[in-house]
Structure formats: structure tokens, C-alpha cells
């Protein structure tokens, strides 16, 4: 199976594990889309923003000595974007509805990020 297909599977599994998730983007750490289930026109933009958020989050946790970065959460009235590192080379952005079960998302994302890191090596 190609790496692309493996990443798409991880995205699909994450979606089906948590109904509150409305979209997933997997991007390289420098903001290029690797896989995702957002509408085509939104992938590139979401990939760049996810990478920016992840990097900024890590810079903040390093500078303010908050320990190793776990997530960067953007919360709007109508939903969330949760951003996590997925190994050294990739980041993952998860869009979720307002009122979503963040604890469950964090749990499912952990295994997703491990798979992504394994695929990308």
C-alpha cells in the first residue's frame, strides 16, 4: 500500500472513531497537505494553518517552559480546530463540533499520530 493510501486510512479511521470530528488534515511540518478529508479547495490552506499552529504552539511551550507540546487548540463558537504533532515530519489538524468530546479525540488522535509517524518513518 502506498504511503498516501496508508495516511488516508488513518484519516478515515479517525473520522469513524469519533462522530464529532468534522474534518481531518495531515500535513508536513512545513505546511504541505499529505492527506485529509476536507473539501479539495480547503486542503492546502488547512495544511499551512495547521503547520503554523503546531510550530507556534511548540515555540510557546519551549519559550514559556510549559513542557513538551501536546496540542494547540483553537476554539470558536461553532467548533474547534485541534492541532497535534505526528512525529517529527508531520502535523495533524482535527476539526470538531462545538461540545465535542475532546478527551476521546485526544485519545484517538494519539494512536493516529503514532501510525502517521510510523508511515512516514
Amino acid at each position, binding site marked *: 500500500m502506498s504511503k498516501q493510501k496508508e495516511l488516508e486510512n488513518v484519516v478515515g479511521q479517525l473520522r469513524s472513531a469519533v462522530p464529532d470530528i468534522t474534518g481531518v488534515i495531515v500535513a*508536513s*511540518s*512545513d*505546511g*504541505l497537505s499529505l492527506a485529509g478529508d476536507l473539501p479539495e479547495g480547503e486542503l*492546502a*490552506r488547512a*495544511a*499551512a*494553518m495547521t*503547520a*503554523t499552529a503546531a*510550530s*507556534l504552539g511548540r*515555540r510557546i511551550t519551549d*519559550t514559556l517552559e510549559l513542557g513538551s507540546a501536546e496540542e494547540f487548540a483553537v476554539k470558536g463558537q461553532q467548533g474547534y480546530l485541534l492541532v497535534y504533532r505526528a512525529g*517529527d*515530519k508531520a502535523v495533524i489538524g482535527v476539526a470538531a463540533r462545538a461540545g465535542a468530546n475532546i478527551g476521546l479525540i485526544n485519545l484517538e488522535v494519539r494512536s493516529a499520530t503514532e501510525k502517521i509517524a510510523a508511515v512516514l518513518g
Partner: protein
Amino acid sequence: MNGERLKLVISGPVGAGKTTFVASLSDIPVVNTDEVSSELIGKSTTTVALDFGALTLDGIQVYLFGTPGQERFAFAWDTLLEGAFGLVFLVAGNQPATFPTARRMLDYLTTNFPVPFVVGVTRKDLAQVWSAEEVASYFRLPAPHVLAVNATSREDCREVLLQILRFWGVAGTKIPPEKAEHAGTSSH
């Protein structure tokens, strides 16, 4: 302008030397957001959010904000440029292939953020490099707006900042006589 706090933005295409420029000019340790580049851009890392530095010049506190260069990060340019008093737009003098992209980017930035700006042509220390005059001609900019820069040289970077302050007519930053001859006058 004592006690004044100003925001200077450093932008330009990928690999022009923005992160280096901020590092050269900053008095404080710079806050970077570098990530490993998955594309071939001539170097291993690239800025994905911003560079942040600061310096004090003639009693003025200047905050430096370096932007990412790739157009996919254009959403960040708007945020970073808000409230800026000046823009330093760097282009690599040894990479004329980046000029068309640079021109588009400069047009976008100066249209949406009409602040005094200087184009810095970096890599001036290299042998095969476009001169400031050649770049000024290409971008159709008046000579005082285009300076040759070695982005690793604190003095060169400082000169760019001073030029922007001069455009604001800041007292105490008089143009030295030899530069006054060239500034704002036609070719001679």
C-alpha cells in the same frame, strides 16, 4: 521619538534571508519557528509562523517580525503586517528566478499595507549577484527604496532600518552627504 515602540516586518520570498536578517539585527535572542523543509528550497529549514526579534535604536524600541516566504502562508502575512510602521522586503540577489514571485508578493503587501518599505537585495557578498540598481529597475522602484544587503551583516541590516526611519522623516537620522546626492534625484 524616545520611548516609542515600532513594528518592522521583514518579508520576501523563500530563501531571501529574512530569518538571517532578523537574527543579525536583533539585540535579544530571536524566537524562530523553523521546521524541516519537505521541499527543495536550497536549505534544510523554513519559517512556518514567524521570527521575532527586538532592538533599541536611538531610544526607539523596534520589534522585528519575520514572515514565512511561501505563498501558502499568506494568511499569516496579514496578521504579521498589522500595525507595522515599515516593511523590509528581501529578495536574493543571486536568485533572479524568484523575482516574478517576489514582484507579485511585493505588490500584494504594499497594496494591502501601504507603509514605507525598502527592498533589500541580499547576498551582496557573492560574485554573481544582481545590483541594487538592476533590481530597482526590474521592480520599477526609485533608487532610495532598493539597497544591497549582506543579511549576515548587522550594519547592513541596520542601514535598511535607518532608511525606513528616514522615509518617516525621523529627526536624528540625517542622510549622510554621499547618500543625499543619490536619494530622490534622477540619474547622474
